[in-house]
């Protein structure tokens, strides 16, 4: 019987049968040892990890949290995964015969999870190392860290933290080796053999993937940064190296355009790129449109029609104002805020996230041109420099990275965009709900709440029609309040002029100027207030009916129609007694008031006069007399025919008080 741990070289030279049996048993022994090793090392590994994560990490209080996150990365996830793994491993120990089979299966089940968790840790390990380097430069800090580690894990030795942090990396690479060892010690026809084989290759793949992931992350982080450089900074970056790079690429591109060199067609990539481009466009457009929508919403909220006070104490006006106030203070701002937070912000984040890939795509194209040149050179010359090789690798890394991740990016971006759109719709619905909720109260109080919409519209139309009438009547009433009547007895000359116009044109054509007219054009008249004119035409040569052609007795010209009023002339003396003095009834101001200035005047005698003949009549000072004619039979204006005390006779005109001169006739009368 073979004893565990002893090596019996002599048994190898035994008989074939015995040898087969012995080697079989030895195989089994070694297998058991290998399994043992797997489980034991897993146990101690986990133990160390736990110490790192809890004791050591919590003692490193002098380091900022940011740094601790970089150093320890996702060690908690690693511990979690590995604890479960260990537990499952230990369980297999109970099933002796199938243990190896089970172990193989376990690895096959877990390898994806292991990859997921370890790749993150491995990718950030380099950064952790960089951080540790900076610590090494501070001896004080270094000593402290060292002492903490020594207290917890003395076996860590002088390299301290870096020794500890690299352990997970070592572990994940160890798994394929440990499995390989078990595999070697398994008979090929055991049921576990193929399982173990697959497990080995699976774990090898895990490591390959982790490396690839690491490399891509490095390439990506180098090129995704969208740098905002000023022109000056860009120029500063130019040197012979970059210039030559750019010119090389440009010439490559030109060669392609000219057809001298075949372009590398990559349909798969082109499709991905096109889709990405559409997604990007979608996001940008949506972002811009939402921005405009938000601006319009802001503008809408500026206007507050409900703030005006019509001094109406109740009814729909008040209800409207309180409803709108409520909406403007609460419902709309809330909607705006939600829109900003749940639609606008995510769109901005999404757009920003797409900027990195856009940059990478651009870079890929540049690198592709480099790549193609290098390929050409390779064909021609057969070898390339180290830098050229690097360029090839960079292109390949970029390309594979993009091809691998663009589909997912497109899908995720579309999914998010869809969600944002649905949110937008939901917000609209909820706004409407809010408004309706708040309007419920006001709506029920409206007087015509029960009416259907068409009936209500008819009602409003009728109501507005009625009130429209009322308004018109108000307007008319106000317009009836007319300018004051012109009560101006005329000067003698004016009387004669009026008589002349009257006899020439007839009474219907006489108008009086209501306020001073100053003519602008050569044909426009300048007339004072009170002047009498005769209408010749009630429009001008161009058909403008607000400009009338009149005759003043001496001149003809245009005056504005609005300044003329019909002048009702009292016929001559004989009829004056029978004619009524037209009453200005103060209650009914008619549109064309009658400024009835009789040609016959009543005046006051200023001085006493004693009649010397039967033709004359005596006057007393202050006496009221009626002037019948302002001249004697010979036309001499120095004498006036008056009637006083039922007697008629002539008196000197100068003894009579004439009407006080009306408004100063500043402008010259047209003579």
């Amino acid at each position, binding site marked *: 019987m073979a004893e565990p741990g002893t090596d019996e070289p002599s048994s190898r030279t035994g008989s074939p049968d015995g040898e087969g049996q012995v080697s079989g048993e030895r195989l089994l022994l070694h297998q058991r040892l290998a399994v043992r090793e797997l489980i034991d090392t897993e146990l101690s590994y986990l133990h160390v990890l736990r110490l790192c994560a809890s004791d050591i990490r919590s003692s490193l209080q002098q380091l900022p949290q940011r740094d601790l996150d970089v150093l320890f990365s996702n060690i908690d996830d690693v511990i979690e995964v590995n604890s479960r793994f260990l537990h499952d491993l230990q369980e297999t120990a109970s099933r002796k015969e199938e243990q190896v089979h089970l172990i193989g299966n376990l690895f096959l089940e877990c390898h994806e999870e292991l990859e997921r968790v370890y790749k993150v840790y491995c990718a950030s390990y380099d950064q952790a190392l960089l951080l540790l380097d900076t610590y090494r430069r501070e001896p004080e800090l270094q000593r402290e860290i060292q002492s903490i580690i020594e207290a917890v894990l003395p076996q860590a030795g002088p390299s301290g933290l870096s020794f500890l942090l690299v352990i997970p990396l070592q572990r994940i690479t160890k798994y394929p080796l440990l499995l390989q060892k078990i595999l070697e010690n398994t008979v090929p026809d055991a049921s576990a053999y193929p399982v173990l084989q697959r497990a080995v290759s699976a774990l090898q793949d895990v490591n390959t993937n982790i490396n690839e992931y690491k490399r891509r992350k490095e390439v990506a982080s180098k090129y995704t940064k969208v740098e905002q450089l000023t022109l000056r900074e860009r120029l500063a970056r130019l040197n012979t190296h970059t210039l030559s790079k750019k010119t090389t690429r440009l010439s490559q591109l030109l060669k392609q355009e000219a057809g001298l060199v075949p372009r590398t067609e990559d349909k798969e990539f082109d499709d991905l790129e096109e889709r990405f481009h559409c997604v990007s466009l979608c996001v940008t457009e949506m972002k811009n449109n939402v921005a405009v929508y938000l601006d319009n919403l802001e503008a809408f909220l500026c206007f507050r029609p409900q703030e005006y006070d019509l001094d109406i104490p109740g009814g729909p006006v008040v209800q409207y104002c309180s409803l709108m106030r409520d909406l403007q203070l609460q419902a709309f701002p809330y909607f705006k805020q939600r829109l900003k937070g749940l639609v606008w912000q995510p769109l901005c984040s999404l757009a920003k996230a797409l900027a990195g890939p856009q940059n990478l795509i651009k870079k890929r194209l540049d690198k592709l041109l480099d790549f193609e040149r290098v390929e050409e050179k390779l064909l021609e010359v057969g070898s390339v420099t180290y830098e050229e090789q690097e360029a090839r690798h960079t292109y390949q890394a970029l390309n594979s990275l993009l091809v691998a991740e663009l589909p997912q990016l497109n899908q995720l971006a579309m999914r998010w965009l869809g969600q944002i759109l649905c949110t937008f719709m939901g917000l609209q619905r909820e706004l409407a709900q809010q408004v309706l909720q708040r309007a419920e109260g006001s709506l029920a109080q409206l007087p015509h709440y029960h009416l259907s919409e068409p009936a209500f519209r008819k009602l409003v139309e009728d109501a507005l029609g009625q009130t429209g009438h009322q308004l018109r009547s108000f307007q008319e009433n106000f317009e009836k309040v007319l300018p004051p009547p012109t009560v101006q007895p005329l000067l003698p000359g004016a009387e004669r002029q009026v008589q002349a116009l009257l006899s020439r044109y007839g009474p219907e054509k006489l108008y009086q100027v209501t306020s001073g007219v100053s003519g602008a054009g050569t044909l426009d008249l300048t007339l004072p207030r009170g002047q009498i004119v005769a209408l010749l035409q009630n429009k001008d040569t161009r058909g403008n009916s607000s400009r009338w052609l009149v005759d003043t007795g001496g001149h003809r010209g245009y005056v504005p129609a609005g300044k003329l009023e019909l002048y009702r002339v009292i016929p001559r003396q004989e009829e004056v007694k029978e004619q009524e003095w037209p009453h200005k009834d103060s209650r009914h101001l008619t549109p064309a008031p009658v400024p009835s200035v009789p040609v016959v005047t009543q005046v006051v005698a200023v001085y006493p006069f004693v009649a010397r003949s039967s033709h004359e009549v005596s006057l007393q*000072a202050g006496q009221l007399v009626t002037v019948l004619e302002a001249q004697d039979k010979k036309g001499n204006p120095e004498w006036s025919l008056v009637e006083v005390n039922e007697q008629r006779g002539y008196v000197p005109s100068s003894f009579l008080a004439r009407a006080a001169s009306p408004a100063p006739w500043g402008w010259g009368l047209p003579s």
Partner: protein
Amino acid sequence: MSWIPFKIGQPKKQIVPKTVERDFEREYGKLQQLEEQTRRLQKDMKKSTDADLAMSKSAVKISLDLLSNPLCEQDQDFLNMVTALDTAMKRMDAFNQEKVNQIQKTVIEPLKKFGSVFPSLNMAVKRREQALQDYRRLQAKVEKYEEKEKTGPVLAKLHQAREELRPVRDDFEAKNKQLLDEMPRFYHSRLDYFQPSFEALIRAQVGYYSEMQKIFGDLTQQLDQPGHPDEQRERENEARLSELRALSIVADD
């Protein structure tokens, strides 16, 4: 109205009783206030409805641009969603336009009509003022002559002045009375005038938002989107962002 400088001296007695003047100024003052408020209200209403239209149009643009993106040809689900959204937006825009037309007809036009009475009123008040001026002037003249020694010429002038005064005074009294009657009636008419407009306004808004609720309610149901609380929506957005950031090609910052 005492800021108007008089060319001829002031009459000795107060020709218009203080109470009358006070009443007049109070009534006219109220109407001036109302004029200002209705004018500004009309302007704001117009601007508000213009902004409302602009908002609706920009909402339509959102879905229109989405619809014209080539993604719609490639992705059936996306096309369905965007088409549904576009239909909804266009319908809402049509309702909005109708709402604005209704507001134009039942609120803005009436406001304009109401405001158009004020120029006539103001002119009428000016004319009353002018009449008052003339009245004061002639009254002062009469009083001037009344105080002088009663000679012949003076008496003649006095008589003349009284003759001139009479119609002017009558005219002023008439204008004053007319305005004092009409102004309060006009002011009061605002009550009946505006209530229908504002009732129509409320109903127009409620009608529009009812449609909005229905259309977007149907839409969200069709697209199988229950109403999530805001915190959940925010968390989902965070989750989407993290997913994107997990990709290497997306820059972390």
